[in-house]
């Protein structure tokens, strides 16, 4: 089926990206088919899902005109618990993909944030300094954390990854 072929070629791209994400090589790529089922999932969230790409560490990225906006997914904010502190980098900081650039604190646990993109930080969401709970309440809008001018996004994050995590979120809500 055409849909399966398309997804297979996308998944082979994904497997070359995976080693760059510093995860164990045994992690297998995701291959999704089943258009009718996912058609239903995507239709309910198509506006959001068209714009975001997800990493395997549950960060989302939206890239527009060379500027990438980064945040964490609903799945991640739930796994963290109530965020009480958000430590973000200074504007102008140069980051490479996988660099540690900040931390979130929740339930007495400091969790490091790693940059999914290479680039320069051009804007930081200052709302989070006073209201870190936005990361939980509005993880896709007000809780987003940085904008970066990205100079390289290697391989690209497949939409398949995004669909996989949207599925997780749908399931968690059900």
């Amino acid at each position: 089926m055409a849909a399966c072929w398309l997804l297979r070629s996308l998944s082979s791209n994904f497997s070359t990206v995976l080693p760059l994400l510093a995860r164990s090589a045994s992690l297998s790529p995701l291959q999704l088919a089943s258009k009718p089922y996912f058609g239903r999932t995507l239709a309910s969230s198509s506006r959001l899902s068209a714009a975001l790409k997800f990493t395997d560490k549950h960060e989302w990225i939206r890239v527009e005109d060379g500027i990438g906006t980064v945040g964490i997914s609903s799945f991640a904010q739930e796994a963290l618990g109530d965020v009480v502190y958000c430590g973000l980098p200074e504007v102008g900081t140069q980051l490479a993909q996988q660099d540690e650039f900040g931390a979130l604190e929740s339930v007495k646990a400091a969790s490091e944030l790693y940059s999914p993109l290479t680039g320069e930080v051009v804007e930081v969401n200052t709302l989070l300094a006073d209201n870190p709970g936005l990361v939980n309440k509005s993880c896709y809008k007000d809780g987003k954390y940085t904008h970066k001018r990205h100079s390289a996004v290697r391989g690209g994050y497949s939409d398949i990854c995004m669909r996989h995590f949207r599925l997780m979120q749908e399931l968690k809500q059900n």
Partner: protein
Amino acid sequence: MTRGTTALYKPEDVISLIAVEEERVVVEERAEVRQITRGSLLLTETIHCSGLVWCQSQMRGGQPLVEVVRLGLVSYQEALRLQQVYVNRHRSSPAHALLLCEHPPVYTTGIRHKPYPEPLLDRLRLLGANVHRANRGGLITFHGPGQLVCYPVLNLCSFKKSVRWYVDQLEQTVIALCSRFAIQATTSPHTGVWVGDNKICAIGIHCGRYITSHGLALNCCTDLSWFDHIVPCGIEGKGVTSLSAELRRHASVEEVVPHLLHAFTQQFNCQLTEAA
């Protein structure tokens, strides 16, 4: 789904498996359920589905092995250096460790260090304690002789990839330990383990790429007057206590360690090993 079944499943059946296994699910074409077990005895099998969604579950087998490392009385800085050694070990493959130690008197703060400016920290130094900033969660606390400090350096990929779950498990471990001493301990909206309004065990951890460090500090026979000089963990109106204070008899760190190890294996469903 039971062992040995061969069946064709509809999407909702497969979805329940995805919900259990989360990221370990790989979606691949045409799989048939052969043999699935839950928990720690898991097998890799391809799952076939005549319907629309299919997946293959890839799971680990057996309980994780955790090495117990007894450090004795070490400075806070030395313990940080050793934790980093064990954190780095995880780079090649999971190598879980449980570091046990006591510290000479030291006050430590976490990543939220703004409430603790240098003048305040200098006043604490005048008391004869060391002072250190750490990259853990939680606010200011005290470590000293008579307090059992435990630093699990685990790779959460072998357990559950949720920091919230991990902290919860640490709390439950200590609650189970307290119950072995017939002490009723509880959790509260403030992370840590409490006996009434008094905290008996502080928790503050760090997690990077699913590797944990820092951990918990359980008062066994700690001199609690050290806590008078701070608002422990930034929580006003609450006190601190220790196992000795609750039991009204001396309970040493040595006496408590085996109980902690037992509670830990039960709560985390793991096996312990000690270096030769």
